[in-house]
């Protein structure tokens, strides 16, 4: 199993789904994990469930708050080795039904929030010239999806944050990658109708929906030394859905 003993990790949006599974996977591998969420009680509860060192409140749309929290974690634990910028939202709307508010909320959380997190992480990792950052893209950001134009656009942006930041930060020893989950069985997809769910399973060569743990394991690989020469990649975790 991947060994992350002695590493300090931060997972944003870690109170449920992929974020919670990732916090748990990193903690199980020996990392000291701090997770964040928008609600204090849920963050603390999730930290306990994941075996994390702390669960803190964070709104990733607030650049100053992100910077302060990331600095605080690095200061308290003496360093910051791993950051998983997972916080994000998904709200569907067909093209003609997209309200300005949906655009603002989605882009400020998924794009600006990820950017703030990567900026702060890079700053914290820069001095030691080592570190690994993973951001959460999506299969729909790579291939599009009817009813998800805004979400897909935001996730395409996230993938390109990873690619661009990887180019900038490589010579500082910091790796930046993305995972692009397919249809994952989490709260975000709980609203899928049975027919849509069955259709997705039928289209997936591996014959099932993904789990949060499937994505967490891919993230754990990317942040580990097993992926020490991997940067700027968008790793599909989709059971072959796009093939």
């Amino acid at each position, binding site marked *: 199993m991947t060994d992350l003993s002695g590493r300090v990790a931060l997972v944003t949006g870690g109170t449920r789904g992929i974020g919670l599974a990732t916090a748990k996977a990193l903690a199980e591998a020996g990392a000291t994990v701090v997770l964040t969420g928008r609600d204090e009680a849920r963050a603390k509860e999730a930290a306990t469930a994941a075996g994390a060192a702390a669960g803190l409140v964070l709104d990733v749309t607030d*650049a100053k708050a992100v*910077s*302060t929290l990331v600095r605080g974690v690095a200061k308290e634990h003496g360093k910051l080795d791993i950051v998983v910028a997972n916080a994000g939202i998904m709200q569907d709307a067909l093209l003609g039904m997209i309200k300005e508010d949906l655009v603002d909320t989605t882009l400020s959380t998924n794009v600006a929030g990820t950017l703030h997190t990567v900026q702060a992480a890079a*700053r914290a990792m*820069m*001095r030691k010239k080592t570190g690994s950052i993973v951001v959460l893209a999506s299969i729909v950001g790579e291939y599009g999806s009817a009813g998800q134009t805004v979400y897909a656009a935001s996730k395409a942006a996230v993938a390109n944050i990873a690619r661009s930041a990887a180019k*900038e930060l490589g010579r*500082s020893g910091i790796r930046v990658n993305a995972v692009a989950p397919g249809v994952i069985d989490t709260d975000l997809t709980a609203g899928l109708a049975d027919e849509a769910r069955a259709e997705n399973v039928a289209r997936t060569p591996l014959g099932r929906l993904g789990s949060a743990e499937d994505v967490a394991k891919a993230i754990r690989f990317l942040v580990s030394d097993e992926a020490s020469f991997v940067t700027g990649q968008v790793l599909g975790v989709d059971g072959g859905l796009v093939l």
Partner: protein
Amino acid sequence: MSEIATQLRAVFVEALDLGADVDVENLKYRDLEAWDSVGHMALIAAIEDEFDVEFDTDQVIDMSSFKVAVDMVTELKAKND
């Protein structure tokens, strides 16, 4: 030179790996290859750690020289004290 300037000079030398021949007091952003945008981030992180201050994004962008950095740190330290 003020105490902050002296301390800051040492941070610049360490963070940007400057040689003894560099005129740190008159150094400006992008004067040297070491002080590019990536070096700038390392420098900002080093200053924040050394002085226990935190720069906002505008300040990060505006820190265009050693002299500006001295003024900014002096101001932030005064606010914190």
